């Protein structure tokens, strides 16, 4: 695939590896924010190309993992209603709720459908005027504009039977929460390339300055990730803390202005709960006042829900980079991809799933 295969070239990976080894003198803890990058690091064994002095800490950038338990439980209640067609990205179906998951709702006869794009939900709503079509709109800044587009387009088409159950989270406030924690040991960040394709990278400049950490935007292929690490180490060794873009083929300083404009029209910034982590101020989106008619939480009364997390799961500490999956007593035992106790074992971006798949300890 063009613009993918070239960035998996082992020769270029080796060149970068040699360079990184040559310049590294200090011990550096670097965090990749995005779970997609965590998976690439595990899949290609990229830690093997780094000196021991560089440690990669995995960040909370897995939208499936941080969607609050109460929203999962609400999704399960709404999806079980006979008047509802519940639509979702595939990853969400196996995320454990307090008692069960969306897959079991589907198995029990609920109309739960997996979509490629939120826009597909509009077609389903048009084809089923007597049913309520709900889209499970989760995601970071990469996905939020697509979800916003579905809402705006539903309003333009006058669809009365479409709504979203939303849980949108934002990267910069999560980085600040990690950096301002007393336990923080992160000295540099790889920023999530596709989040920045939408948002640009200006909002990271004040964070880099305030906390004196370099931040490098990069992509998902092995060459992209090592190039990002190289630029971070150059900065750290020189005592600099700038924001740099190592993913220039799709990221610009301003991001995508039209997508950002849509976000500010359909959503407003709000405090948001992150599963396993807690509430982070101004770290998410909720529907703006003129779009609340599309809010499934306001349309469907789901009653009281008693939330129950697995007592074994340490997902919160794993998502904050404080513990590794193997530190969990349930990892690979009670908790496996086919029977997850916590969301990070479910998703294609979840750090526990990455460790299980690519690095299972004997």
């Amino acid at each position, binding site marked *: 695939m063009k*613009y993918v295969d070239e960035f998996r070239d082992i020769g270029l990976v080796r060149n*970068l590896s040699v360079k990184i080894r040559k310049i590294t003198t200090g011990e550096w803890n670097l965090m990749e924010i995005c779970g997609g990058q965590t998976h690439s690091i595990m899949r290609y064994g990229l830690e093997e190309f780094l000196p021991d002095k560089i440690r990669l800490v995995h960040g909370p950038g897995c939208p499936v993992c941080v969607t609050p338990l109460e929203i999962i439980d609400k999704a399960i209640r709404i999806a079980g209603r006979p008047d509802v067609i519940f639509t979702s990205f595939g*990853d969400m179906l196996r995320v454990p709720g307090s008692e069960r998951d969306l897959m079991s709702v589907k198995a029990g006869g609920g109309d739960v459908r997996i979509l490629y794009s939120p826009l597909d939900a509009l077609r389903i709503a048009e084809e089923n005027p007597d049913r309520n079509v709900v889209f499970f709109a989760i995601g970071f800044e990469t996905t939020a504009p697509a979800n916003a587009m579905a809402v705006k387009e539903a309003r*333009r088409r006058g669809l009365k039977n479409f709504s979203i159950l939303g849980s949108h989270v934002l990267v910069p406030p999560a980085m600040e929460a990690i950096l301002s924690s007393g336990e923080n040991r992160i000295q540099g960040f790889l920023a999530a390339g*596709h*989040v920045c*394709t939408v948002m640009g990278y200006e909002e990271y400049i004040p964070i880099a300055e305030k906390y004196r950490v370099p931040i490098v935007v990069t992509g998902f292929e092995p060459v992209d990730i090592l190039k990002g690490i190289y630029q971070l180490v150059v900065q750290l060794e020189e005592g600099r803390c700038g924001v740099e873009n190592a993913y220039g083929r799709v990221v610009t300083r301003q991001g995508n202005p*039209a*997508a950002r404009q849509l976000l500010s029209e359909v959503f407003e910034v709000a405090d948001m709960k992150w599963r396993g982590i807690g509430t982070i101020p101004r770290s998410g989106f909720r529907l703006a006042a003129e779009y609340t008619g599309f809010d499934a939480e306001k349309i469907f009364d789901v009653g009281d829900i008693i939330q129950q997390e697995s007592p074994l799961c340490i997902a919160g500490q794993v998502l904050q980079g404080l513990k590794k999956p193997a530190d969990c007593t349930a990892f690979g035992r009670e908790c496996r991809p086919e029977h997850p106790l916590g969301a990070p074992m479910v998703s294609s971006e979840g750090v526990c799933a990455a460790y299980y798949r690519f690095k299972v300890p004997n």
Partner: protein
Amino acid sequence: MHMCLAVPGKVISIDESNPDLRMARVDFSGVVKEVCVQWLPEVTEGEYILAHVGMALNVVDEKDALETLELLKEMGELDAELGKDAW
């Protein structure tokens, strides 16, 4: 599916019939999908776009991609030369 996964594909054709929802047929290594290009007013047929959950997020900058690859290749060649001199 990977939620944050965004993949490059080549624009085959653009349908401008709905000005609020411009759609394109995009070829992802032989798999053709409909992708919304509403946020890329300048995109033209033959260009590569980065697609995520049915939306095109940006046009891939070919010049930047080629320059980056060239720079990283040179990095290795330079090292090899310097290595030879040192010995």
